[in-house]
């Protein structure tokens, strides 16, 4: 808002009332507490109603793709952490899956289970923080975030124990994971999973029936299923519009075919549905975690037989070819497309970033609603600027 308080006024209507009305152009961002980073929206307002909205991106463009095309495959792994910095484990998983597809590596069972456990824990972290921030945008200043971050810290303790870092885990490797999970750590995860439903109940009683939350969220920012499909929206946003599409079920990558879980769907596709789908997804994640923790068995955590090209990861040269690996990241379909020319660095590297593509329908959802609703709608999309701008 402080970037340019440029005010353009234009007479648009001297209608029946005889009064001149004007539109007002407001810049929100890049420094604004509710833009989730450095994102700018140029909003044209008629009174308080949004007439048009133009997103301005690129304030956090960190040349992710170009850097990745000039470094080795394994050196890209820590950069993927910094794409969507809330859930580094899912990003690692997508990148590892892509390269494993390229080099045709078989992954041992235990490594797959560890990956699933980590990515589901990441989903908990992401959804709980997003709901906290969404409530923050609605005006419940910081209290829901405090609740959310209290739980987040518990999961981050696990991440730190297994990988050595709280946020930027860099835990997965091509062909498995970096380190094995000890029994202590599995017990720590079991405790989190056992305690989490109580927290979810607490969070839900606080919010789900809250009158202000209902009034601010219901019937606001409706995204019809048809538009959502046409704009290739994925993740909880698409499912809130009532489309049953989850890559965990569609692709059944990793070991997701061994678990029983449901896909929560919304009815209307408004902000409330998007919020509630995330709440329900967390409960399904807990189901997956419970099953995974039961089924995990001791064994190797790195592929025992890796192809010759992977023996020395610094000099890893995959065969010529292309690969696209995708996972159901907490924000939607996260995919990595990579073309190898047989050298140490990829020839082309592209990230299909879910929050960038989900952001494309922002204008369509905001038009006709008030300025304060636009902030809430942006919060419900769940963007992370590291991934949008890359």
């Amino acid at each position, binding site marked *: 808002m*402080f*970037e340019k308080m440029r005010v353009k006024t234009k007479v648009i209507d001297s209608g029946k009332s005889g009064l001149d009305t004007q539109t007002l152009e407001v810049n929100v961002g*890049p*420094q*604004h*507490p509710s833009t989730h*980073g*450095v994102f700018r929206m140029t909003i044209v307002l008629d009174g308080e109603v949004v007439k048009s909205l133009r997103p301005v991106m*690129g*304030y*956090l*463009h*960190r*040349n992710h793709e*170009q*850097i990745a095309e*000039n*470094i080795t495959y394994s050196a890209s792994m*820590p*950069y993927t952490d*910094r794409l969507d*910095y*809330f859930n580094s484990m899912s990003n690692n998983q997508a990148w590892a899956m892509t390269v494993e597809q390229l080099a045709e590596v078989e992954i041992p069972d235990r490594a797959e289970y560890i990956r699933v456990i980590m990515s589901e824990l990441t989903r908990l972290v992401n959804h709980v923080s997003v709901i906290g921030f969404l409530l923050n945008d609605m005006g419940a200043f*910081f209290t829901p*975030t*405090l609740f959310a*971050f*209290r739980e*987040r*810290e518990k999961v981050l303790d696990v991440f730190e124990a297994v990988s050595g870092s*709280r*946020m*930027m885990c860099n835990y997965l490797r091509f062909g498995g994971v970096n380190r094995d999970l000890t029994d202590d750590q599995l017990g720590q995860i079991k405790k989190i999973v056992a305690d989490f439903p109580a927290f979810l109940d607490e969070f839900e009683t606080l919010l789900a029936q809250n009158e202000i939350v209902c009034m601010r969220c219901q019937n606001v920012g409706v995204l019809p299923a048809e538009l959502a499909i046409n704009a290739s929206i994925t993740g909880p946003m698409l499912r809130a519009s009532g489309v049953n599409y989850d890559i965990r079920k569609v692709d059944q990558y990793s070991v997701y075919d061994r678990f029983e879980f449901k896909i929560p769907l919304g009815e209307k596709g408004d902000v409330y549905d998007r919020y509630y789908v995330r709440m329900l997804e967390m409960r399904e994640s807990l189901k997956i975690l419970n099953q995974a923790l039961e089924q995990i068995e001791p064994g190797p955590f790195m592929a025992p037989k890796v192809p010759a090209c992977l023996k020395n990861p610094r000099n890893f040269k995959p*065969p*010529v*070819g*292309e690969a696209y690996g995708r996972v159901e990241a907490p924000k939607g379909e996260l995919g990595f497309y990579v*073309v*190898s*020319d*047989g*050298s140490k*660095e990829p*020839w082309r590297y592209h990230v299909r970033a879910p929050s960038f593509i989900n952001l494309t329908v922002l204008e369509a959802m905001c038009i006709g609603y008030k300025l304060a609703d636009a902030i809430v709608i942006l919060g419900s999309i769940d963007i992370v*600027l*590291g991934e949008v701008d890359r």
Partner: protein
Amino acid sequence: MAFSKNKSQVDDGLKSELAKKGIVITTLNELYNWGRRSSIWPMQFGLACCAIEMIATACARYDIARFGAELFRASPRQADLIIIAGTVTKKMTPQVVRLYNQMAEPKYCITMGACSISGGPFIDGYNTLRGIDRFIPVDVHLPGCPPRPEALLYGLQTLQKKIDSQDFRKAPWYQKGLKREYAIPDLGPKGLIPKFNPEVWQPREEDHRKEKYGSPMVIGKKTKAPDLDAPPKQPKAPAPKPPKRSDDSAPPSKEA
């Protein structure tokens, strides 16, 4: 960097003796600095990954409120401290400098994370500013990627030590004619114009990075796209072994 605390004229022994009787002796300077350092208001300004750790520091476990800096203000006009948490890109630099200019004196700056110190892991990128200290003066540098919340608390304590060492009679913001507004760079087609603010930062004479780590990333060394439709290469058939020679027909050695 060690900051020397302002020296009090009063004898320490006398001070503690009086304190036992409930009398506190202090100087105006100490009182003034105590008030300032115990209520630093940071600006709510996150750029990238480090911003999440900044929020975590403000939350229950780390609780930055213990150090009096919990009131994050969204407006630079109300803030004392700007925590530059995250990668500063070239597109964002003019805005960061403008925000710093808009803050009221006395103002402080902490760079959080490797990116805002030097560019961090993204230093090779064409759009990354290699350190915000090229444009605005920085009080505390906090390394890490991202720094842990404890590190941010330590950085804040370091800043408090710096505030304690300041004397309000000599403080620059009470001097006449103070103008601490820094030139806002423009984003041109080939990066920022100017590339740095010579009042704040001067380039090193030797290229430290190049000497220590070699030349930076070379871009555009590959020119030929791989042919994905080409049939996979057949492994080369092993070359036929040369027929065994009898001892008689052995090649003459060089000595012979």
